[in-house]
């Protein structure tokens, strides 16, 4: 599958702009949204190939957003959802996400280039 549109839900300005800068340079269309509620609305109203989801968001946690998008029914079946977080979650919460998300990455362990590599590997999968 090809990935063209990316929704990045990230409340930290520096980090958000860092990834969108790198992704834009690579040719992806990036929508950067800092608010969890807004981000959820965007995910439901627009079609994105990839959703990069932070966990520690104000107002609405990434875990809640994931449950809304992929709880009982998959509201975004054509999107890949990758959780990007720096929060060391307990094992149970991580496991709970495994069933709903398509990837899980610790931001401090990757760089923008590594994120690009991982996105490319998604594109190569099907």
């Amino acid at each position, binding site marked *: 599958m090809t990935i063209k549109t990316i929704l990045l839900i990230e409340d930290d300005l520096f980090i958000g702009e860092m990834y969108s800068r790198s992704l834009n340079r690579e040719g992806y269309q990036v929508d950067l949204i800092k608010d969890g509620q807004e981000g959820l609305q965007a995910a439901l109203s627009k079609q994105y190939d990839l959703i990069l989801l932070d966990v520690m968001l104000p107002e609405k946690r990434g875990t809640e957003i994931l449950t809304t998008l992929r709880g009982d029914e998959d509201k975004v079946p054509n999107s890949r959802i990758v959780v990007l977080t720096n929060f060391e979650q307990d094992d*149970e919460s991580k496991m709970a996400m495994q069933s709903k998300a398509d*990837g899980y990455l610790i931001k401090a362990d990757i760089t923008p280039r590594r994120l690009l590599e991982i996105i490319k590997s*998604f594109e190569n999968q099907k």
Partner: protein
Amino acid sequence: MAIKISQFYERYKGDTIAAVMLAQVFMSSLAGAAAWYLWQYAGLDPLSAFTYSIVALIVLQVAVAPFIVAFASKPLKVLWQAIAHVSNDPVHTAPPNVNSSQYEKTGLRALVQTVYDLAVRPKDSSNSSTNTTPTELYQTMTEDLPVGLIALDAKEDVIYVNNLAPARQGTDQKHVIDLIFDNNDSLGAWLASCQDKLRDTHVWRRVPNKLPGEDGRKVYDVIGYYRKSGNGVETMLVTVDRTDEYAPQEEDMDFIALAAHELRGPITVIRGYLELLGQELQSLSPEQQQLIDRLQVSSERLSGYINNILNVSRYDRHHLKLHLQEDRLIDVVTLLIPDLALRAKTQNRKLTLHIPDTLPTVAVDRSSLSEVISNLIDNGIKYSHEGGEVIVNANVKQNFVEVTVQDFGIGMPGSVVGNLFSKFYRSHRSRQTVSGTGLGLYICKAIVESHGGSIWVRSVEGEGTTFGFTVPIYSTVADKLAEGDNGNEKIIDTKEGWIKNHAMFRR
């Protein structure tokens, strides 16, 4: 006319009272008549006559008493004889004669007959007139056990739960087990592995019933017993509530997780922007590039230290959960090469890797094994001389693949070697010149041993050091590693997390 047993006593009491009263009246009348005779016809004064009559009364009472007692206690004597007869008393074995119609009328015969009937009835152990049958006794015991008890049948349906079991009624009246098992060590996976066994036992620790933060969260240790049977109970789960023991440790983990999160934010920014700078600044001189490289190496190290701290914290609280999968060592190391090569370059060391791709696959947790390899190579770089070489080798040793990291640097004295894998240990010599948390080797040992391998070090002062560790060859432990619940999904572990391989995942 036969009298029923229940009427016997009333009739007997009535008869006996009547008889005794009659006797009393008769005797008193006699005494009174004697007094009257003595006073009227014998010419005695009333007092003397009265006195004589009292004496006569006393004599009569004493004479008649045995006959009255014999009469009143006749039924007792008969019963005594009957009971003695049926209990085979050695002295009195003759049964009483209860055939006369008098006995039939008073009901004594029925009493005696009942005694005979009771004596010959065979001993009946399931007497329904007792208070608790064995079934009821077991039920009371299991209901009130201070541990949870869940029984499953051969179809893995829940057929019994006791009061303390973490289970609830599902929508279709079936019981649902409220336990969150690790995906890599789930109940379903264990039950599947029991299919070709007759018996098995499995212990899970720290199994919660709800996610952290949810109300009513409890943490259990769970013991499973499996015994193949055609029907009925095939699997039993015993759950022990350990919430109080585990709770404080969970709070500590929260603190460390929050601290890590705070630290990781700036690290993410530093690493990311350094990379962007490196890419976007086209006209950097080699010296300037080196500045950027050193910054990058340090920020990566910082990230690694945080992971070390988190893993040490998990390990110390027995929280370290490894996701062991079949992997090739060459693949694990390849992911690390960019970072490690940069480290070697910035510190002017030469990193050489001799990892044959003909090695058998190993059973490893990619993320934590990467941490081990990084730590050891980092150590090799730190303690080497300027321009020194660090050589990584890998080969097969019995059921393991052994990896060695050799440097030709300052080496260590024997006194240091013994303490090397302890927490925070830094020898006095190294403290000034070399940075680090002191946790690296400690967590390496913890991770390697959690894989089922071992770690060792050999060092000669002034000549260099070799670290070595082993990890199990996958085929030797494949059967012990339960199939994950992933089924069709394949989770690819990267060292920074995981991604799903949708080529194998059918939605």
